[in-house]
Structures are given as C-alpha cells and as structure tokens.
C-alpha cells in the first residue's frame, strides 16, 4: 500500500536528513582541514618519502569521481579487509580524504604566497620554527586562502549529496524517499534543491564575513 500525498511526519524526516547532511559535512570539513594542513606541512618542509607519497594519493583523490571513492570504501574495503563498516563511517572517511586533498593544495599555495624575506627576518630575530609557523605563516596564509576555502566548503556541501548513493539517510535520500512515496517530483526536488541552495548561500555569506574580519585584522593600520 502506498501512501500518496504528504503528511505531518515529512517535515521531521526533512529535518533529520538536513541534520545528517550537516553533520557529515561538518565532520569531514573539520577532519579534512586538519589532515590537509598536515599534508601541506609535510610538503612545504619537504619530508622525504611521505611528501611525494601523500601528494600522489591526493592526486588520485582529486582526479577520480567521489562516487567511485565512496563505492570503493563502502563496498570494496569491507570485502578486502573483512571488516564491517557503516554507511555513515564510509561517508565521513571518504569525504574527509577528499576534502584533505583539496585543502592541501590550497594550504600549499597560500604558504607559498608568503614573502621568503619574512621568514629569514623571523629566523634572524631568533624565532623558533614553531613560532614562525604559528605567528607569521599561519595568520597570513589563512587570509590568502580564505576565498578558495569558501569555494571549497560550498563545493564540499554539494558533494555530501552523493552519500545518499551508499545508503546514508541524508537530505538527498530523504528526497528520494518522499519522491517514491508521494510521486510528486517537482515539489519534492524543489524543496530539497532550495534547502541546499539556502545552505550554500548562508555558508558563503558566513565565509565572506569571516574574510572581511580577518582582512581588517591584517590590514596595515599605519604608524
């Protein structure tokens, strides 16, 4: 028996899907940023073996479809290693790796943009490498990287929709469920599409505000 038409439970389903999408997005974005920065540091400090290895892996992640990566992790890895993995775990694991690969590229080019003379100056003033990284490189690189980071975040939000294909009940999966039950594709997909659109716009606006604040902090204030 198919229950045509919408009912009061549907908004709850929508909210749950929204929560799952946002949760996976936040988790993979935070973990991906940490790992991505680590990869960038390994590259910038030219750590032997690890640097080329990590860069090769991130090239593969950037040049293959995320959907295939999700299938590889969710269907392939459990068979290969004889372990159980839930769809949500597979989703966060894959998207984290994917985000890290892109964050690494952004972080490397942001650090490259910093004037070498500043580092020499800081060294001659007796700053430790750690303090140079924290007080001189990091704040400036963050400002340079901000526009690219906002673009990446908006993009990764769209990418989370793919986890519906391995069975995570995210916003897109909720759309598929409602679509199959009500047979009203236009309303269902318009609501889901508008939800993503608003989320993306909010994300971009928040990123933009953060960027202006960082810039204000960085600007040359005069003598």
């Amino acid at each position, binding site marked *: 028996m198919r229950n045509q038409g919408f009912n009061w439970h549907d908004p709850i389903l929508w909210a749950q899907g929204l929560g799952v999408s946002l949760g996976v997005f936040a988790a993979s974005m935070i973990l991906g940023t940490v790992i991505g920065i680590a990869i960038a540091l390994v590259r910038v400090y030219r750590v032997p073996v690890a640097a080329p290895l990590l860069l090769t892996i991130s090239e593969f992640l950037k040049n293959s*479809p995320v959907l295939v990566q999700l299938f590889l992790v969710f269907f*392939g890895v459990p068979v290969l290693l004889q372990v159980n993995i839930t769809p949500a775990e597979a989703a966060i694991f894959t998207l984290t790796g994917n985000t890290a690969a892109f964050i690494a590229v952004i972080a490397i080019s942001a650090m490259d943009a910093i004037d070498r003379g500043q580092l020499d100056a800081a060294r001659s003033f007796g700053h430790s490498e750690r303090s140079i990284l924290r007080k001189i490189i990091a704040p400036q690189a963050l400002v340079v990287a901000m526009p690219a980071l906002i673009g990446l975040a908006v993009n990764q939000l769209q990418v989370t929709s793919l986890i519906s294909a391995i069975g995570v009940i995210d916003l897109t999966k909720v759309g598929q469920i409602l679509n199959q039950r009500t047979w009203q*594709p236009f309303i269902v997909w318009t609501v889901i599409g508008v939800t993503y659109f608003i989320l993306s716009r909010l994300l971009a606006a928040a990123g933009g505000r953060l960027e202006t604040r960082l810039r204000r902090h960085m600007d040359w204030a005069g003598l």
Partner: protein
Amino acid sequence: MFWDGFLVTASVSALSIAGSFLIGVIVAFGAVSRRPFLRKAARGYIGLFRNIPFIVQVFFFYFGLPEIGVYIDAFTTGTMALSIAVGAYAADVLRSGIENVDTGVIEAAEVSGLSRFKIYRRIILPIALRVSLRPLGSVFINLVLTTSILSTITLNELTGNAKIVASDTFRPFEVYFFLLLFYCALTYLLSLLINLWHRHLNRFMRGAE
C-alpha cells in the same frame, strides 16, 4: 561490458562538454551585458546551478519531466542536466575572462565597423579564452568525473557497469580500484588535450600580434 560503459561515458562527456561550452558562452555574455535584466538573469542562472547538488538536479529532471508528459531516456536527460549544470561553471570562468579583455580592443573593433556578433565571436571570445582556458579545463575534467553520478538514474556508463560487475564477481575492491585508476587516466588524457589547445591558441594569438 567495460568497453560499453566507456563508450557511454565518452559520448556523454563529449556532448556535454560541447553543450556546456555553448551555454557557458551565452550566459557569460549575458552576465557582462549592459542590460540589468540580462545581467541579473545570467548571474541568477550561475548562482542557482552552482549551489544545488548535481544529483538533486538530475533527479529533478529525471523524475520531474515525465510528470509534465516529457518522456526522454536517461542518456538524454543526463546529457542535458550535465550541460545545464556545468554550463553555469563554464559561464563563471568565461565571465572573468571576458571582464579581463581590454576595453580599448573592443572600442577599436566597434570603430572599425564590425558587427556586434562578429566582435563577440572573433575578438572578445578568443582573447577571453586565452585567459580562461586553464580553469575551463578543470571545469571539463570535473564534468567527466561528474558523469559517474548519472549511474544513479540507471544510465550504464563506466560506474553503472562497474556496479553490475562488482556485484556479479563479488570483487568490489578490485573493480572500483581499477575504475578509479581508469578515471585518473582519462582525466590525465583530457588535461593533455587541453594543454595542446592552450599551446595552439597561444601560438595563434602571438602570430596575430
């Protein structure tokens, strides 16, 4: 089976690259138009299709069009959806390319009596393309990767066929790992082609100077 999937992926990619380029050019010229209405419409298009996940767009077309009596197959729906969505990305890249074209060049063309269309096609577009070609290349590489999503609307391209092979052979890891390498090779080949085009365009432009 793998070969069949490859042919579908290749033809969807080729058709959508052409389609999205065409849409991209038109929308990009709209986005830099002097008419506020055209400009707003074009920028709205870019914003809309870039901020909604492609899979949602595909479902909208695939399930929505039959509701209004339009029945088209997964291949056509997929190609159309890809062209429309990637067209928005291409338009944004081309728009910044066009904005970088020296206005003096355009004024000179106007003075020499070229028609509006000829100025767009022969003067502005080639100059803008030279700047936009690399980012446009990564947009098209992304397009090839995005074709994999069409497996969700039962189109048996590379990923769709791989799903079938993986469940038939019970060797999902090998199948998907090979598929991943294959996509990498494919995008590498495409980036080589774009480099060639870039070099050709550069040589062509230098000859004109």
